[in-house]
């Protein structure tokens, strides 16, 4: 019963399919191979390899770029779970470099300084899948229209404050519910208002969900934060600064993974939340000038 392989790689099914395999999981930012191993041992489904976690990027200021390929390659070598890495918005050459390195997923990320203020990367051109941030459904559908195979809320990275991630997740999910209940006649006007591709709006009307996996990101720093996002209705969580900027990263990593699996079980949440030490310091997003907010980068 042997079937000859006719390799059909880089297809939509395999790109969006990998995101399906990450569901219910935690993706952790790591800056060294040792951190990557801690993340893998805690049960992370993937790691995001970068030079500095978002709170340090925020503190350092200046231009934040793609990480050193040598460092990404070392992290790829150190773990067997998928490795993601960030390219600047619109910087398709950084994306080409990351694809050539064997990165499993590219995050076209507002945490880095945008390279193109008008255009995002044409992600259909790549075999490697992309995840992109969104603050509302229109932004999510524009990214999917460009070829993103996974969406995450932008939240406010490096803030240690969950409020923006909640705002963005509520917005996207609320807009999906609204479209689900519409008459077909209303879909074109909705596509116009959302500045989103009509075909994708129509698909949401028919299926009642995004055509790709939707994670939360940007401000998750405790097990309860992770479970809150899961209960609100996302498929999984990214944790950036929240783990390796906490007092005890290993314990925090374990606890956030458990909280994400057992997000509906308050007794489990109580038990994993004990004795974690200090979470990362947080920022009040309301006092942050717009120029310092990562979430306003991209459109």
């Amino acid at each position, binding site marked *: 019963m042997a079937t000859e*392989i006719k390799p059909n790689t880089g297809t939509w*099914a395999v790109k969006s*399919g990998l995101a399906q395999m990450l569901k219910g*999981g935690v993706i952790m930012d790591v800056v060294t191979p040792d951190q990557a191993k801690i993340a893998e041992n805690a049960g992370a489904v993937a790691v995001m390899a970068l030079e500095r976690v978002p709170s340090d990027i925020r503190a350092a200021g200046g231009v934040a770029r793609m990480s050193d390929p040598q460092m990404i390659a070392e992290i790829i070598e150190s773990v067997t779970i998928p490795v993601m890495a960030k390219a600047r918005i619109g910087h398709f050459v950084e994306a080409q470099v990351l694809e050539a390195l064997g990165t499993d997923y590219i995050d076209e990320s507002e945490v880095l300084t945008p390279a193109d203020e008008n255009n995002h990367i044409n992600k259909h051109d790549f075999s490697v899948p992309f995840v992109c941030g969104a603050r509302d459904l229109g932004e999510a559908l524009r990214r999917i229209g460009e070829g993103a195979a996974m969406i995450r809320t932008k939240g406010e990275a490096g803030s240690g404050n969950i409020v923006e991630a909640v705002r963005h997740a509520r917005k996207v999910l609320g807009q999906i519910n609204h479209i689900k209940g519409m008459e077909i006649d209303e879909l074109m006007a909705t596509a116009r208002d959302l500045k989103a591709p009509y075909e994708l709006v129509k698909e949401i009307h028919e299926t009642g969900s995004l055509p790709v996996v939707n994670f939360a990101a940007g401000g998750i720093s405790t097990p309860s934060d992770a479970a809150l996002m899961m209960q609100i209705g996302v498929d999984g969580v990214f944790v950036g600064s929240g783990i390796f900027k906490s007092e005890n990263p290993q314990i925090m990593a374990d606890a956030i993974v458990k909280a994400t*699996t057992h997000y509906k079980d308050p007794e489990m949440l109580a038990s994993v939340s004990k004795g974690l030490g200090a979470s990362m310091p947080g920022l009040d997003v309301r006092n942050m000038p717009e120029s310092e907010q990562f979430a306003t980068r991209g459109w």
Partner: protein
Amino acid sequence: MASIGVLAIQGDVLEHRKMLDSIGIESSEVRLPEHLDDLDGLIIPGGESTTIVQLIDIYELRTPLVDKVNEGLAVWGTCAGMIVIAKNLNDKRPNPLGLMDIEVSRNAFGRQIDSFETDLDIHGIDGPPMHAIFIRAPLVTQIGSGVEILAEVGEGKPVAVKQNRLLATSFHPELTADSRMHSMFVDIAHSTP
């Protein structure tokens, strides 16, 4: 009617449940040992095998799951699930459950950019070939006696295997609209141990 659970630690749990629902089979989610009670079959979905095995141990599911299989629980592992139920892996981690007498190579086709789709002829499935999606997929590298190869890609590369009430596939029928493999597993689970 067979009662089927889906291990809901992590991965594409919902896709399996939707597929079972489409063939009229109710399913439940298994997160803790007590959720294994009264099941005829358990699907271990696609996901990250390292994560799933770590969490099976953290949630103390290993011993109860192995005991249930010895009592006749049918198990089907897809992709990561194949790794989880294998006897041996050709690398050190993770430590699989050792249910099926196979050795498995993880990420055997390469990294994500090497993930692919193809059509497969599968022994025991009538009609046209099944469309199969391979994502960072594993491959069976050795089989013990009593393990039947149901499908291969290329010569000597088994991607679907069966041993008594255990089934393992490297690919993801749950990501397609083809429910024939799910029906096959329900029939196994429904048969007398």
